[in-house]
């Protein structure tokens, strides 16, 4: 089965609705990228040095990262030689194939689900730098989990930023979910502790813990986060069941440093890539997945509570290559 056929099938597996949502959210991104690649293809009949140079630029402009891009181009060049590809049309297929390959590395392709405790309370800790969309993601997750019939409780662990507790409370109201809070300036570990007790006594299925944004080079703040995580582990065996690092798709190469440091401090289990409804493409997650094995579990596509989607590498690539994929299948 050709790669594009496979990709198309995978995408068809998704409900129409999800794909459409994804497509609308990513229209800008896709158009932009696709038109660039199509442009490229139109301008270059043959696959030569110049072609690769332009391709390199397209990928760099998607924040894929210069190192990854150069490795990719090198592999592509080899592959093109090996398969004796002369036509730029054909090389498109290889490009997307390789991109998906970078993402998965040697692992089996799969859609990452939240790994929650099926019976009993699951705790999800949300971490990340300032302003990436942690609190909003919690609102969206609460909505989604509730839709799935789960009882959800939120813990207002951002006791630092002005108005952060109120912000989470608004999300609590919107989604009809209880919020456990202390006052501003309180010890976040204490809030989370209370959140766990409350979630237990209320028989909740999932506790979503908000935390204050912090830059990963602030040693003390990272220690504070480790402490929060330890409180959770101490209270419930195997918890937190998920520690999600929220990354802003607009962020450049610093996202890698964020992933590394937050993983060290809190043993991050997955990534939420937000703001993909803009023009930024978040290409750095390829390298993060590749280097650190951290999968993207969700993508944020807007500010509404329905704007959270499962991440799927094929869809991600589809978002970048959309029209090309369709062309590829028709052939």
């Amino acid at each position, binding site marked *: 089965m050709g790669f594009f056929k496979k990709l198309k099938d995978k995408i068809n597996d998704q409900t129409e609705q999800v794909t459409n949502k994804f497509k609308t959210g990513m229209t*800008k991104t896709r158009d932009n990228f696709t038109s660039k690649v199509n442009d490229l293809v139109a301008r270059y009949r043959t696959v030569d040095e110049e072609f690769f140079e332009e391709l390199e*630029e397209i990928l*760099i*402009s*998607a*924040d894929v*990262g*210069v*190192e990854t891009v150069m490795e990719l181009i090198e592999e592509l060049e080899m592959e093109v030689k090996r398969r004796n590809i002369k036509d730029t049309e054909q090389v498109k297929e290889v490009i997307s194939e390789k991109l998906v390959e970078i993402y998965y590395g040697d692992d089996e392709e799969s859609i990452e689900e939240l790994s929650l405790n099926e019976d009993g309370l699951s705790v999800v800790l949300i971490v990340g*730098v*300032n*302003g*990436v*969309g942690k609190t909003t993601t919690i*609102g969206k997750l609460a909505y989604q989990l509730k839709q799935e019939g789960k009882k959800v409780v939120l813990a207002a662990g951002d006791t*630092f*930023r*002005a*108005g*952060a507790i*109120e*912000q989470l*409370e*608004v*999300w609590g109201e*919107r989604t009809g979910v209880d919020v456990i809070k202390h006052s*501003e300036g309180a010890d976040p570990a204490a809030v989370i502790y209370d959140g766990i007790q409350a979630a237990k006594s209320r028989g909740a299925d999932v506790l979503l813990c908000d935390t204050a944004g912090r*830059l*990963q*080079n*602030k040693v003390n703040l990272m220690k504070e986060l480790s402490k929060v995580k330890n409180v959770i582990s101490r209270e419930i065996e195997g918890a937190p069941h998920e520690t999600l690092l929220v990354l*802003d798709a*607009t*962020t*450049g*190469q*610093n*996202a*890698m*440093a964020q992933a*590394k440091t937050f993983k060290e401090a809190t043993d991050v289990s997955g990534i939420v890539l937000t*703001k993909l*409804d*803009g*023009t*930024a*493409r978040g290409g*750095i997650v390829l390298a993060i997945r590749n280097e650190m094995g951290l999968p993207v579990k969700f993508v944020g596509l807007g*500010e509404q509570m329905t704007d959270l989607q499962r991440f799927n590498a094929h869809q991600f690539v589809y978002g970048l290559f959309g029209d090309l994929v369709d062309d590829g299948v028709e052939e």
Partner: protein
Amino acid sequence: MAFEGLADRLQNTIKKITGKGKVSEQDVKEMTREVRLALLEADVNFKVVKDLIKRIKERAIGQEVLESLTPGQQVIKVVKEELAELMGGEQSKIAVANKPPTVIMMVGLQGAGKTTTTGKLANLLRKKHNRNPMLVAADVYRPAAINQLETLGSQLDLPVFSLGTEANPVDIANQAIEKAKEEHHDYVIIDTAGRLHIDENLMGELQEIKQSVNPDEVFLVVDSMTGQDAVNVAESFDEQLDVTGVVLTKLDGDTRGGAALSIRAVTGKPIKFAGMGEKLDQLEAFHPERMASRILGMGDVLSLIEKAETQVDEKKAKEMEEKIKSMSFTFEDFLEQMDQVKNMGPLDELINMMPGANKMKGMKNLQVDDKQLSHVEAIIQSMTQQERVEPSVINASRKKRIAKGSGTSVSQVNRLLKQFEEMKKMMKQMTSPKKGKKRGMNFPFM
């Protein structure tokens, strides 16, 4: 830091071509390749990088190498000049309207830091410029955004104008200005909701506010961690709102901050302020020079080169190097170098400027900032001759005396003593033969 700075990157090339009199085309090619990578890794937009590299190449080829510089440093010098040109000079002035109140509008993407920056600006205006600002909560979309600004207002003890979340942001802005006139506020800072530059409705709303209140400043707030997309964001906001200045936030992080260059290149607008922390007094004037160094990841290697052009005294450098090697470098020598040290910037940066230094353990602990330098000087000046040469004699009572004499504390004295020891150790490692000779920049004080 995950990235290699340019200085590290250029080490090999520099070594290879040390001693040549002229920069050849091949040298330049090799080096600009590294420059390109460094800039891209720092998130400078690829188009901006392309233009820069082109200019650097044109300028660097065939240049005579200055006496005191290696060809590598020569190229860095050209890079520096090009970056400095692009970054422009320091510009942290805020407009003053002929007829008060002066109106400032804050705009930007979601999560960039607009609200916090609004609070910081107000604080700056009051503290530094003796103004009486009023804050306006025009973000009616993000949950509790108004609340956030109100909390900042009460922390600063400054009034916040709001009409709740049901009102129209244009009305809010208009009414706020009326109110400010009544209450004799000389500045009005309007905090608007974060929005995508491609959101036509919301961008239209900003244009309406702008037309209606005719602001004296429109500040675009940009997260310094922004990647390649910075050009799209900045260009789009600028086209639609004709921004007057940029505030770069979260610069207390460890991002290289290449977005700064991208923004300058596409808008030509000055970056006026830098957000350096979450506290309300952590807004600083933006230093284009420092930013250029930071983007290249080479601490103050650039200003070092400037120094090299004017005042590297090879003989003295040799002397000093010998002293360090034999571990006889003393506070006396330190003090002698103080003026230069002060001119060269923070000590930790000075150490960072040394190629390879940021890879060494223990560098993190060496933190002496600008302000502390004067303390350092005072402490050393309060030492006796013997103490300066032989710091091991400084016992508790001597420390007390030194602290008193210098107007510092014993713990500050302790810190300096400790750092001095660490630094000596480090410098010894740096100058040990296996690290290779790096002419002209072997240690921090030269």
